[in-house]
């Protein structure tokens, strides 16, 4: 369809507030009588709490209250507790909070609290915990994740015979399809490599500060959250209240990258402290605290065995992942990684095995492309190795094994809605001048050597079943109510333009209602999982269709005849036969208010979510209200895919390399917002560069204390670590199972970008496989000079 808004750049309504400093984040709010809370956190990686004595602290001047585990809802282990009770599991785990008239008084009071700890053995490496007699991260066990009950697993000492090969004892989860034995038997080339991918913190720039107070029985929480309505029930659960009694104000979110999806436990502390002391409470989270509780990507220790036919087709894949899961319920990255391998390279037969192992390190959770993105930077160099050994072009071998819309995914070999990664590889290769650049591969210029990289990324990128909510007011404005949150992707606005486009409303007449529960917000997807662009294109589509039907109906009621006699035009509804017979949208809105009932939101469809019903009730009677559930069909996974290309110049004398050129092409369906696409691709590539060469957890093995917690140690990329310019494009082929053709793209560029760098490094070094991320400068230098690496082959949380 010809579009006026879709595919065009625009000025999102919240960007001027960001460049002028007027955008209010959680720490920018104040309330009368507000006090400050500070956390007391565990100084030990693993200990029993025998006794806590707060009597001296309570006597300190300015102290107004203490909140401990006894004051907050408890959840069955290994769910992440709000405050630790009898056992602490990592350095920095919150134990209690002190509220005082200022932070200095709270901090002084914390110094007076006496805690009697009994130190317990700690573990920082999953393989140490799986070794017979090895330490457990919890008294109750060492293996757990969602859907995997807490248990103690020890492998046989004989499993650990070779320290360079991943031991593969009994897994906690496995699936397979096809005949992998036959596949490996038929294979011309088998590549079998063990690998390590580092865990590291999300490092959101805005720490998870929150301010809360209670009024009229409701909790008002000013927090930093990626999502809005999808988070409310979960945050209410942490506070222990009915979701209806939580007013969440989250207009801006200073980064989350997966760590602030459905709310998070610490949000309950200022809320419950406020309830306890009956004063507004601000709890500012420090950078060190953010490192501890701000979620980290799980580490993988893995092994991939890949069997290729002579022509490069992947016949069999055998993947084992030991997933470092932190001390609590953690994340499911291992599952996503298995699915990603099965989908991205379409092995004819595959076996997946995994075990999530607990360590005394910060809690794990989603980080931008959880699972898929740490896997590909170690798998893509193996694909290149196969290409080299079989004499096949590196783009060609990827296209040969790439999925399309008929391909299957995962252990159950389910369907997907579309896949155009081959087209993305072609487009990227053309933009990159692949044939010309690959000729420079390995070329030396003095101490410099050129490396050419290519990487792919995948994440599921769409969902369905949520609600759309639109409102036309008598001033002629179209209000798009959205509950997806504001992570900075601008998808709240880009998807609102779907409704504006379909209803022929000028963008200047669109108001976006978001960020505050009191505005009447529908049940929408979390702003996570590359979901919102695709999912809320659907909800705004169905709501726009519902509003269109209402508008035609209202025109017939005002002007006579039946709805079929009318059509919607530029902010008016006109007779098909006589264009002069028309009503404006403003008139329709007034008529809807007069008629009430289903026109003004006083009656709503039965199938919408209760959260949406509550939202509609807040705005009922204020205009023409269209609310609808997205019941459009969607069968299978909606994949977002990217292909990245990079050229580097590696200095063999210093081990450092410069990224000379980098670009990424996305298969994200119809492009809603080109600048927004650029942000997701370039930002993802930047984080990918961090993954490939810089970021990792480092722990003191004896003391279990973090050594890379602050930003200068943890090394998120700066301006100087990344190219000044990163190219981007999209294949622009619509997804057939989205009414606007849209798929998401937030996550894949991280994985493809990281892979383009790891493959470029391997290329520059004559095909050498580090089988490890990040590939640090000293690792490169050690390899070039024949020196041993500082870390043991499969060691994690090390330098």
């Amino acid at each position, binding site marked *: 369809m010809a579009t006026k808004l879709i595919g065009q750049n625009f000025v999102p309504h919240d960007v001027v507030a960001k460049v002028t400093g007027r955008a209010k984040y959680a720490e920018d709010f104040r309330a009368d009588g507000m006090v400050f809370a500070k956390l007391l956190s565990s100084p030990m990686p693993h200990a029993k709490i025998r006794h806590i004595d707060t009597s001296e602290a309570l006597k300190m*001047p300015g102290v107004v209250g203490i909140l401990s585990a006894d004051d907050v809802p408890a959840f069955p282990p290994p769910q992440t507790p709000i405050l630790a009770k009898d056992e602490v599991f990592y350095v920095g785990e919150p134990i209690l909070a002190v509220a005082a*008239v200022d*932070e200095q*008084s709270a901090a002084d009071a914390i110094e007076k609290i006496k805690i009697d700890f009994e130190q317990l053995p700690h573990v920082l490496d999953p393989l140490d915990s799986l070794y017979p007699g090895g330490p457990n991260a919890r008294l109750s066990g060492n293996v757990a994740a969602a859907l995997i009950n807490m248990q103690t697993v020890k492998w046989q000492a004989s499993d650990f015979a070779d320290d360079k090969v991943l031991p593969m004892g009994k897994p906690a989860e496995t699936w397979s399809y096809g005949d992998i034995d036959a596949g490996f038997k038929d294979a011309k080339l088998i590549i079998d490599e063990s690998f390590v991918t580092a865990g590291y913190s999300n490092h959101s720039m*805005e720490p998870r500060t929150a301010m809360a107070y209670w009024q009229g029985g409701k909790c008002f929480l000013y927090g930093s959250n990626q999502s809005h309505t999808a988070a409310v029930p979960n945050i209410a659960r942490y506070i222990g209240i009915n979701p209806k009694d939580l007013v969440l104000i989250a207009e801006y979110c200073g980064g989350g*990258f997966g760590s602030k999806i459905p709310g998070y436990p610490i949000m309950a502390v200022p809320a419950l402290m406020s309830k306890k002391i009956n004063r507004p409470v601000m709890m500012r989270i420090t950078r060190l605290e953010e490192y501890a509780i701000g979620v980290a990507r799980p580490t993988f220790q893995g092994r991939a065995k890949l069997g290729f036919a002579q022509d490069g087709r992947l016949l069999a894949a055998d993947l084992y992942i030991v997933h470092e899961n932190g001390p609590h319920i953690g994340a499911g990255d291992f599952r996503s990684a298995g699915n990603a391998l099965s989908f991205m390279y379409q092995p004819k037969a595959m076996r997946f095995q995994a075990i999530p192992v607990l360590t005394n390190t910060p809690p794990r959770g989603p980080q931008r492309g959880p699972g898929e993105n740490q896997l590909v930077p170690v798998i893509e160099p193996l694909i290149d190795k196969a290409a080299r050994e079989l004499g096949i072009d590196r783009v060609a071998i990827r296209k040969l094994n790439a999925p399309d819309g008929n391909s299957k995914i995962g252990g159950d070999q389910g369907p997907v809605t579309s896949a155009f990664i081959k087209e993305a590889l072609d487009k990227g290769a053309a933009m990159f001048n692949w044939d010309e650049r690959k000729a420079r591969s390995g070329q030396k210029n003095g101490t410099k050597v050129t490396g050419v990289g290519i990487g792919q990324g995948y994440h599921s990128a769409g969902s369905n079943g949520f609600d759309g909510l639109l409102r036309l007011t008598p001033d002629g404005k179209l209000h798009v109510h959205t509950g997806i949150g504001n992570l900075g992707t601008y998808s709240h606005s880009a998807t609102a333009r779907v409704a504006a486009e379909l209803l022929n409303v000028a963008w200047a007449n669109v108001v976006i209602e978001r960020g505050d529960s009191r505005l009447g917000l529908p049940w929408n997807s979390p702003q996570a999982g590359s979901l919102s662009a695709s999912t809320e294109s659907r909800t705004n589509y169905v709501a726009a269709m519902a509003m269109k039907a209402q508008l035609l109906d209202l025109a017939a009621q005002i002007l006579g005849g039946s709805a079929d006699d009318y059509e919607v035009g530029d902010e008016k509804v006109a007779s098909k036969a006589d264009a002069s017979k028309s009503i404006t949208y403003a008139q329709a809105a007034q008529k809807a208010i007069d008629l009430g009932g289903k026109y003004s939101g006083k009656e709503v469809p039965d199938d919408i979510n209760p959260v949406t019903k509550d939202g509609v009730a807040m705005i009922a009677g204020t205009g023409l209200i269209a609310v609808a559930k997205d019941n459009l069909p969607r069968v299978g996974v909606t994949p977002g895919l990217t292909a990245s290309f990079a050229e580097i110049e590696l200095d063999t004398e210093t081990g450092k390399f410069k990224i000379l050129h980098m670009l990424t092409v996305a298969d994200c369906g119809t492009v809603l917002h080109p*600048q927004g696409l650029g942000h997701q691709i370039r930002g993802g590539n930047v984080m990918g560069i961090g993954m490939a060469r810089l970021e990792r957890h480092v722990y003191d093995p004896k003391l279990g204390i973090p050594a890379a917690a602050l930003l200068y140690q943890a090394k998120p990329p700066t301006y100087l670590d990344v190219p000044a310019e990163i190219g981007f494009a999209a294949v622009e082929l619509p997804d057939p199972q989205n009414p606007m053709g849209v798929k998401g793209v937030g996550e894949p560029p991280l994985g493809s970008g990281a892979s383009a760098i790891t493959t470029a490094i391997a290329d520059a070094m004559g095909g050498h496989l580090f089988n490890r991320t990040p590939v640090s400068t000293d690792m490169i230098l050690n390899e070039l000079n024949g020196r041993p690496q500082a870390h043991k082959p499969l060691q994690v949380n090390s330098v």
Partner: protein
Amino acid sequence: MAHNDHGSHDGGEHHHEADSLVTYVQRSAPSRRAFIKGVIASGAAVSAAGYLFRAPGTGAAQAQPAAGTVERLVTLNVNGQSRRVDVVPNETLAHTIRYKLGLTGTKLGCDHGECGACTVMVDGDAIYSCSTLTHSVRGRKITTIEGIEGPNGQLHKVQAAFVAELGPQCGFCTSGQVVSAVALLNHNPHPTVEEARLAMSGNLCRCGAYDHYLRGVMRAAGEA
């Protein structure tokens, strides 16, 4: 201009390309050492946990006036206005402007001089306000993000360029990016991309919007 040059984590591969700029930065930036010396001179201890100051007139402060908590009324020149404010010796400028002057556009991302979200200008130089003692900038011209717009609220050319290039993603680092860019262009109205990159390198962006911010800086410079 550029302050506390964050540098490349991987070393200083770009420094040789802009030696004069580095020299400038080293000369003009209030260093961490100067900050610590300032704290020692004031007789207060600086806590790594940061921004832990007693609220004025609280029971806590009255009951136990510890070292470093005695307030002095000072006059600050902020965004062209004279602001009188009670300040304790170990108070940082970020704390004063956010919590006492109500200017919350300046953000605290790390409070350790690592991220640049708190960047403000003092006499036209970009500095980290989390690592600057308020007492040390008395009598100097302080410009926060709230003072960047024109007198009638028109966007500064850097702000307008950041809107046009869609500079921000989450927006938390944006105030600092704007102030750093304004300071850069005040000192060097027509920077090369390489100079702009170096000057902006003290401002971290976890969203990775560097490309968009740099385009914004160059666009603003083109309109200068």
